[in-house]
């Protein structure tokens, strides 16, 4: 793998992927240099403490970004509750409260598609366990731009609708267990 081949990692999953995300972030190496951009479905009406719980596990700093916040390497960004989160060409986030997509706000498709247009073939897209098809179209956009696509192995998923919907649209570059995803990310020559 060529050094500098990637500029960002973007991850989608539903509320149930929390434990997988925690595991990834607790095992990701401390000097991981790329931004890790995460969009998880969350329960809108519950002040879930999601970001606090993820912070406890993560070796990297975890941020729920504000609108127009610059994206930096080595940080974990979590889409804030009740906002869509987009990546902009100038390397910032933008937030929006427009209508839910796939019954979801934040919607994984919005985050993944906008990241695909900005990072193109220098993006790693990962879809984890989840109970609806949000994220599939976003992963297709990543694949169309020749980004690297990974789905969690459906056999290891509590809910496999999300990764399976991706596999219906594209042939992912990798189908990995959570351990496999950690290994893949930690071995990147960055």
């Amino acid at each position, binding site marked *: 793998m060529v050094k500098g081949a990637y500029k960002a990692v973007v991850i989608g999953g539903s509320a149930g992927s929390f434990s997988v995300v925690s595991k990834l972030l607790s095992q990701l190496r401390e000097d991981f240099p790329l931004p890790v951009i995460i969009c998880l479905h969350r329960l809108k009406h519950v002040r879930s403490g999601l970001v606090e719980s993820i912070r406890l596990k993560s070796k990297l700093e975890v941020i729920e970004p504000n*609108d127009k916040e610059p994206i930096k390497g080595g940080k974990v960004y979590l889409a804030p509750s009740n906002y869509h989160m987009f990546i902009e060409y100038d390397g910032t986030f933008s937030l*929006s409260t*427009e209508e839910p997509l796939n019954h979801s706000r934040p919607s994984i498709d919005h985050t993944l598609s906008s990241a695909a247009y900005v990072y193109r073939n220098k993006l790693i897209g990962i879809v984890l366990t989840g109970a609806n098809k949000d994220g599939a179209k976003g992963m297709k956009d990543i694949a169309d731009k020749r980004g690297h696509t990974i789905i969690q192995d459906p056999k290891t998923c509590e809910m496999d609708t999300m990764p399976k919907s991706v596999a219906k649209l594209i042939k992912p570059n990798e189908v990995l267990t959570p351990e496999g995803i950690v290994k893949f990310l930690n071995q990147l020559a960055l």
Partner: protein
Amino acid sequence: MDFKHYLQVLKENTPYDFSNYSDNSIKRRLQKVIADNDLTIDELLEKTQNDKGFIERLVEDITVNTTELFRDPELWPAFYEKLLPMLKGKKTFNIWHAGCSSGMEVYSNMILLNELGLLDKARIFATDISANMVRQCKNGNYRYGFNKRQLTDFKAVLRKYPLNGITAIDFSKYFEIDEASDRITVKEFLRDKVDVRQHDLVQSNPPFYHKFDVIFCRNVLIYFNANLQSKVYQMFHKQLYPKGAMILGNHESLTGFYNTKFNKNGPVYTKSNSFHFKYH
């Protein structure tokens, strides 16, 4: 479609200028309008130049009108913890809800002011770019099912974080609820009290001659580019009394020059009186 060209056509033929909205969001909204209306580019251009009714609907569809009663419930006690000392000391005060959408936040705020015994001292103004939203705000008539959850959530928040000693609100004082037809209507004494006007924040002149003690502008400026945001902050700054407060959305932050002209106090930005030497 070259959306920048289209925004130019819109600007030249209508009172609306979206050219300083942030690129991706305006592009996304326009694509949605075109898809929802099943229009060709030529039809869109034709309607833009000749169909006033279409333009009003377009403005409503382009702008994002997400709002709910007591949105971000846990933030309201925090707002008032910061605002109360200032408001209590005044004989009267002015509040502006800029970008009020259908008005749910305006009425949420008025209910809290009434509970705090401050509504009589308040003059409430609300503005939105969309004529239809102005109408909806004046009517104060909403879907009940959509708001039931918000009211329940807010009750739970009050029990946990009392607002100046208030631990419960009897919402029947403020709304007529018709469950059968799924409608909730704000009572007249609140609707009559708010002055709602059509106004576009892109126009740098505010629609008021007087100043304000509090300006609510939540999740509105996120759709603007940094340049336009800065102009709006400048207008808000000018329209606020010294120590007046500006309240933004949960994940909005002041950046750039105007960051130095406000003090952040929890979720509330207060107009700063300090002299910023380097900028004068």
